[in-house]
């Protein structure tokens, strides 16, 4: 029996209808709002967004953060999966521990890292006990933008690497060990086996992990807000500020549209960069 041509559409239909009802309708309303200005439809709100004090910084910060954190997380997740593969005993406990950050909300994660990085936090306590600093030192202010960025990067890395890791582990588990063993027989080093055998087989998984993570990274801001305060605006935090503090729903909608477009563009780039090459089957 061959699958009928209709079957894939039947399979995706429920999810499509569901998302259409729940998401697309309010989405269209919101996008319409972005073009709605007091003087009739137009680009006035977009002009206000672009002219906003924090706009350029928010755009730069968003990109800097995503471009730094996502590749790092992918590399870490791949490394962790490979380590796990070679582990003999206690695998499920190690896997459990490594996936714990999955269960931690971004609000809680912001709290954790603030407690560590703040003036009288745990990091400074360690530095103080080691004699590296004579008194509490501020790391998270506008006077130390480099360290502030690093702090946010570390916190985001800690919080969200587990998501990439779980996806990669699920993919790694499906690679038959025979492939690697065969390569091993031909004298390939561990690195060569990883580079030439495992990595190509993992490509669809990596694609998914990257898209998931990139889309989420463009949307996350609770950690950024907790650690960066007013000093590290990102696009989504600006959207929220315009919606709930400045109460200008139209400019907020513009920011939301921009975030969506940026995520979409990132998704396309990832899809193109990791597409199956001619002649390859997966």
């Amino acid at each position, binding site marked *: 029996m061959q699958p009928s041509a209709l079957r894939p559409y039947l399979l995706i239909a429920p999810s499509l209808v569901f998302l259409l009802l729940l998401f697309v309708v309010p989405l269209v309303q919101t996008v319409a709002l972005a073009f709605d200005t007091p003087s009739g439809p137009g680009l006035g709100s977009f002009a206000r967004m672009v002219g906003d004090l924090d706009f350029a910084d928010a755009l730069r910060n968003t990109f800097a953060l995503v471009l730094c954190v996502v590749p790092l997380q992918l590399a870490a997740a791949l490394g962790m999966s490979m380590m796990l593969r070679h582990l003999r005993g206690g695998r499920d406990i190690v896997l459990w521990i490594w996936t714990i950050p999955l269960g931690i909300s971004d609000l809680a994660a912001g709290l954790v890292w603030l407690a560590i990085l703040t003036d009288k936090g745990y990091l400074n306590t360690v530095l103080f006990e080691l004699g590296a600093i004579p008194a509490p030192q*501020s790391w998270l*202010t506008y006077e130390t933008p480099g360290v502030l960025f690093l702090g946010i990067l570390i916190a985001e890395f800690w919080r969200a690497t587990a998501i990439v890791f779980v996806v990669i582990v699920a993919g790694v588990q499906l690679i038959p060990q025979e492939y690697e063993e065969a390569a091993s027989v031909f004298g390939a080093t561990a690195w060569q086996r990883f580079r030439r055998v495992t990595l190509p087989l993992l490509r669809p998984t990596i694609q998914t992990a990257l898209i998931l993570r990139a889309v989420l990274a463009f949307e996350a801001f609770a950690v950024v807000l907790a650690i960066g305060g007013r000093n590290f605006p990102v696009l989504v935090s600006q959207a929220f500020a315009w919606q709930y503090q*400045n109460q200008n729903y139209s400019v907020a909608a513009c920011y939301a549209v921009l975030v969506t477009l940026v995520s979409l563009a990132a998704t396309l780039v990832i899809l193109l960069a990791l597409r199956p090459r001619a002649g390859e089957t997966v």
Partner: protein
Amino acid sequence: MSGRLTMLWCALLVGLAATAARADELVFLSTQLRPLEEAQKARTQILKGAPMPVSYLPEEPPQLPIHLQADEQGARTISLVGALHGELAPLAASFQPLDQQAGLLAQRGVPEQIARLAHLGTDHLMYMPWMQATYIMAANKKALPYLPQGATLETLTYAQLAQWAENAEKATGQRVLGFPAGPTGLMARFFQGYLLPSYTGGVVVSFRSPEAVTMWEAFKALWKHANPNSTNYNFMQEPLLSGDVLIAWDHVARLQNAFRNKPDDFLAFPAPAGPKGRGFMPVLVGVAVPKTAPDAAGASKLIDYLLQPETQIATLRASFFFPVVKVALPTDLEVGLKLEAQAVQQQQTAPDALPTLLPVGLGSHNGEFDKIFVDTFQRIVLRDQPVQDVLAREAEDMQRVLNAAQAPCWSPDPPSQGACQVK
């Protein structure tokens, strides 16, 4: 596995049963008294003697307009809303006028000025004043040795405050002056109600006057001695308790934990004065009844109860929010509360006191109005842009907001015909 599932479903059913039991209570949604302990006290102390069972639900301010919209679409859950003046103002269209209960204002001795605010620029009483507060200064006693010669806390000026912070920095190597300039801090109120009136005698009209230029230059100099973490602080009680900050300005309720937990370590005192006086601003919390209230009659009974002198005192003890009705403060208040009450009193009765009203008539533009002050601060102080240019630019933006809202000037600016104009 199936045993676990069964347990889960049982748990779910119990949960549903537990929630169904609360359906007949009057829903009182409040954006104030949110923190854990205060919410508990609101239930167990403030609302203990309420005339009906009340379901007291604290809620984040951003969610309030959404819940009201949902109620208008037919959800009809909320009977009474408690929120700040600034949060209620944009939502005036959602509330029913309380003119029938306006008699309470005079009967319980609510001050004329507060009553007028509650009309939200209309002829109707749009909400009932519930409790009030203000912003004051707090200092750790450790900072006292650095107070400049001849300065006293009660008569402090902004120039002396700057000197004080500088002295403390020289002596301790730390910048110990702090402001709540974080994303949800109330820094905009500092500029609107404290700094600008103290230097220029007004808020809107004098926004880009030469006095305002002087003020920003002075504040920029003062900021050099302010803790750079200030742009992360939302509540000053935390850095005060941790000792990162020794001198701070904030809302009394956002300082309360410092005074509650360590009343012996901290002093409360009035905000500093500038060349034009000692600017200060009230905080007003009101209760309003949505047009869609399922139990409007119950809500008005509850309003009456909340405005009784005993309830107002219970509210003060629970929350550090002061009564809006005429009532003598009891003598047995806790120490920290007494300290704050005294500072509030001193601030109001200072010979150079310059009260500034909350913005009136800005409606849904309240947020954008606040943003102008914070943006101005960021541009001038944090980004070092030329003062004149920034003020010209932001004044234009302010005029746009005022025109859009058609908001007339409010005190201490002189009354205006039509929208208030920046000079």
